[in-house]
């Protein structure tokens, strides 16, 4: 037996060979940068200068920095509000699409469009929709007689926060709706028939049939949604660049501003790494809190 023939029969050798290209790419461009990022967070590295180990100094500075605190608040607010709306609207849309309707395939295909086109480009459209002088929303509201002056969507702090959240919800609803629709389609109609015979109202059917059976997929979908909302960058960068007065800066945009525009690599890396505990907490919550409820397997909740 030659060496090659022996390798073909060994699961471990062959497995190693098959894994090698993927492992190499991921180790060099994912694992190593992750470690390097953690290390950079403990240094005062600048662009073009390696930097010295300064321990927790970056984190101490950032903890006292008003802009960073504001960015943390913005990120939590943005993530929470956008995720709640994405979930509610997405679930509603999924339930509508799960009804016996005409042109279902067409609806489903068209609804995903906001999710598949480049976010940076649709963000430009939102930027134009939110323009202070030529906003189409303001125009329509003025014509309807609801407001007198044009709304400055991106000029004041809370307007801007709400405006970017709406853009984010617009982009995220299709993803939530289509994945939840896939979950809804796995629920057998016989459950609804049985509960209807027992006299359940539509609300009771939703509460006691749909929701329990949908919870596992909701947990996964919302984990992904929260994860990507929390680390969002494109929408903010294109629509507001963090303004006005840092009111819409998220952790990701602030870390880009400090590290790439400002050159403070160490500080930027520290902001980016500071997101990790929140992401882990979110994954853990979904994994242990929602995913494996005993009653879904027929047992009782502890």
């Amino acid at each position, binding site marked *: 037996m030659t060496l090659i023939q022996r390798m073909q029969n060994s699961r471990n050798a062959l497995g190693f060979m098959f894994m090698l290209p993927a492992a190499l790419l991921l180790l*060099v461009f994912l694992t190593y940068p992750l470690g390097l990022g953690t290390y950079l967070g403990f240094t005062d590295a600048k662009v073009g200068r390696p930097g010295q180990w300064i321990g927790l100094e970056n984190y101490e500075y950032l903890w006292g920095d008003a802009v960073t605190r504001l960015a943390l608040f913005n990120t939590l607010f943005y993530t929470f509000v956008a995720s709640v709306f994405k979930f509610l609207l997405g679930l509603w849309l999924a339930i509508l699409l799960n009804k016996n309707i005409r042109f279902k395939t067409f609806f489903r295909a068209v609804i995903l469009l906001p999710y598949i086109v480049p976010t940076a480009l649709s963000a430009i*459209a939102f930027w134009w929709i939110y323009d202070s002088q030529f906003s189409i929303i303001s125009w329509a509201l003025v014509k309807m007689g609801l407001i007198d002056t044009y709304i400055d969507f991106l000029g004041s702090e809370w307007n801007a926060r709400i405006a970017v959240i709406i853009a984010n919800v617009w982009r995220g609803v299709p993803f939530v709706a289509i994945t939840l629709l896939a979950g809804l389609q796995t629920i057998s*109609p016989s459950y609804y028939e049985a509960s209807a015979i027992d006299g359940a109202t539509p609300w009771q059917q939703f509460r006691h049939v749909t929701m329990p059976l949908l919870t596992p997929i909701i947990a996964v979908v919302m984990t992904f949604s929260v994860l990507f909302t929390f680390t969002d960058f494109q929408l903010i960068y294109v629509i507001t660049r963090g303004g006005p007065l840092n009111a819409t800066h998220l952790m990701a945009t602030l870390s880009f501003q400090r590290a790439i525009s400002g050159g403070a690599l160490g500080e930027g890396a520290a902001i980016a790494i500071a997101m990790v505990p929140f992401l882990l907490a979110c994954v853990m919550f979904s994994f242990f809190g929602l995913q494996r409820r005993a009653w879904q397997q027929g047992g009782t909740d502890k």
Partner: protein
Amino acid sequence: MSSNTAQSDTVGMSFLDSTRRKAVLVYLPLFAFLVVLLFPFYWMAITSVKPDAELLSREGNPFWVIQPTLSHFYKLLFETSYPQWLWNTVLVSVVSTFVSLAVSVFAAYAIERLRFKGSKQVGLSIFLAYMVPPSILFIPLANVVFNLGLFDSRWALILTYPTFLIPFCTWLLMGYFRSIPAELEECALIDGANRWQILVKIVLPLAVPGLISAGIFAFTLSWNEFIYALTFISSSEMKTLPVGVVTELVQGDVYQWGPLMAGALLGSLPVAFIYSFFVEYYVSGMTGSVKE
């Protein structure tokens, strides 16, 4: 898949819904969703053909265009580097998608079917890698790219996009390979086929839908990528389309809304076009990616 059997049965009790009730409770909200979700695209399209005079006047109806013009498209295609950005995006997306797909096929097959020592742990770490967002990686990755001498080249993107494409494709393909009966492979092994022949002649032909799903999804992901392209590329002729439109067409205080919207529309059309042919594959890729 179980969803298909449920779908054919989904008529269920819907015959009880009256037509008028259904119109108000189903079609009306659905129509409202459709209008809101599609309005930005309509607005993009109508703005891109509006002459500047109409664009900047408050008279008339802004929802319509009286004298459509292609001057914004002309300006975009002949007076900016737009065609170059488009070419860069196509090149980077296609190459990184194919590289990731090829690499992922081997990885997924090894994890799912070869069951080498530690394959379970490797599978789990692939899933964890899938959850690492680009916005916590781009700073150290910029460092790596710079040290490898790839800064401001297409290679920087071709080599870094697989960091989010490989975990995704591998995870999706693992699911597809799992659905192929192991007996087929055992038969082939008994008939004297080696692992390479099994992969090429049995597993891959059966996994074609999975390959298309992963490929389409990976292509749109790399077409839409923004933060890496923004960070690793500095010269105008190397930029990708989303970054080029955002950074080069926005100049000074007077925004060129016409060319901007034309650029956004032209940049969205290719993905929308490809997507329209592969909707089912795309949806199955998306729903497959969140399944465990």
